[in-house]
């Protein structure tokens, strides 16, 4: 999921300067799971904004803030409250914020930081394992992604910066290459590490990325 955290309240207040009436939008997906934009957080934000002298015209947790059809449906349900507001504060990821803003056509403010696509170890502890590079290499590395989990994204083995299995960048972080090496050794797959990895095709990371099904129902997406 998209791991997120709320922006500091002072920063949110600064963004809302000059605007009195605010509609607060959340998202039932990642933002709720990260405790950033669910019912509870929206209610708390409403109280905070009101304490700061703002008028909250309404709040709504969108089913999926990054999905245009879901946004349109929810926006219709809340039309009056949204129209009455000067702007919408979005407690969701950057995609959700833009989908809302572009779909509804109203001024929006972002109330969260989108951190990364991540794994949930437990509520409040998240880590990045995939950087959505668009050309997956996991098969070559026994299921550990060096593109993401090596701080330098090295494909042909470790640098000299590991100690006790940790990375020079941060002693709290595992060296991905020590993990890869140990797993390959254990599974008798070190030949994979010996294979030369050519420079990665980075064209699949050129922003902004789009993906459209080539046909209405391609093979991989059939039920």
């Amino acid at each position: 999921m998209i791991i997120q955290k709320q922006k500091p309240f002072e920063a949110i207040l600064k963004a809302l300067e000059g605007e009195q009436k605010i509609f607060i939008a959340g998202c039932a997906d990642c933002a709720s799971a990260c405790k950033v934009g669910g019912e509870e957080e929206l209610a708390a934000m409403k109280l905070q904004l009101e304490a700061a002298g703002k008028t909250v015209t309404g709040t709504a947790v969108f089913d999926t803030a990054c999905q245009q059809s879901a946004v349109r449906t929810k926006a219709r349900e809340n039309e009056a409250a949204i129209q009455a507001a000067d702007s919408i504060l979005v407690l969701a990821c950057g995609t959700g914020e833009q989908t809302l803003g572009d779909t509804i056509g109203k001024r929006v403010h972002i109330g969260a930081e989108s951190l990364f696509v991540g794994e949930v170890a437990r509520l409040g502890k998240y880590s990045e394992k995939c950087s959505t590079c668009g050309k997956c290499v996991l098969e070559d590395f026994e299921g550990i992604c060096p593109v993401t989990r090596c701080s330098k994204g090295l494909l042909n083995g470790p640098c000299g910066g590991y100690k006790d299995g940790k990375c020079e960048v941060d002693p709290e972080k595992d060296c991905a290459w020590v993990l890869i090496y140990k797993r390959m050794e254990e599974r008798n797959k070190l030949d994979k590490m010996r294979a030369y990895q050519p420079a990665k095709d980075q064209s699949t990371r050129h922003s902004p990325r789009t993906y459209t099904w080539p046909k209405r129902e391609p093979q991989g997406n059939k039920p």
Partner: protein
Amino acid sequence: MSKLQQSLQAGQFTFTGEVGPPKGVDLHHVIEGARMMKDKVAAVNVTDLQTAVMRLGSLAVSAKLVQAGIEPVFQMVCRDRNRLALQSDLLNAFVLGVENVLAITGDHIVKGDHREAKPVYDLDSVQLLKAMTILESGADMGKDFKGRPNKLEGAPKFFKGCVVTPCADLVEPQIIKLEKKVAAGAQFCQTQAVYDPAAFEKFMNDLRRRNIRIPILVGIVVLKNLGMAKYMNGNVPGVVVPEPIMKELADTPKDDMKKKAVEISARLVRAMRSMCQGAHLMTLGWDDTVAPIVEQVSA
């Protein structure tokens, strides 16, 4: 052919030194430092934004050394340039008369003085060596519209170097990567600092068993004081200064420190000279220690 390549091919025990470009444009110290060691070494490495600190570049200083009649080893890190810029700088190096090039991953940006910068690492050090080999063949890493390799107007030629960390706490991944560097075209190797001849001997035996046969220049970082040795033990992965050397440094009065640093470095090189093909002396500004170290090794 570079002097470094000739010396190694001739089977001579070969020394290299190292200078670090200044943060600024005052070349005085770096040229003077290189001049101080030039008669004792085959070539002088020029570090490339070492520890991710912004400074004058390795290529410019390497070219200045060429002008001054001193042979450089142009260090290239993968941190700051994508494959277009790396390949272009390799061509730049060749036309500026730089022959020796050393491929390095590069310390991460969090180690330096521009911690908010974007790290690149478009290529790793193995792929950078491969890029050099491809350029030498008269092509580059790109492709034309029909998927054929791009052709160069005139191909460069390099003496291609790489690095390894012999005293890493897990050495096998280092050796596997070194094998790949050699396969990608590496012709010589300078190591991370080594202070433990027994560990180095084991490492060299491992290389021999694996049939890795490029010239290895053992790395020595000249120990300027006890604090520096402690810092390296605590903060530089793959570098271990053993207890007896720590004690020696602790027992040395401040005024005798340079003499002691020379003595320790020379003793280490003497202990390891039969195991490898040369030594890479990293003096971190103590450029005047290179000559006495080389003399003591040869004495």
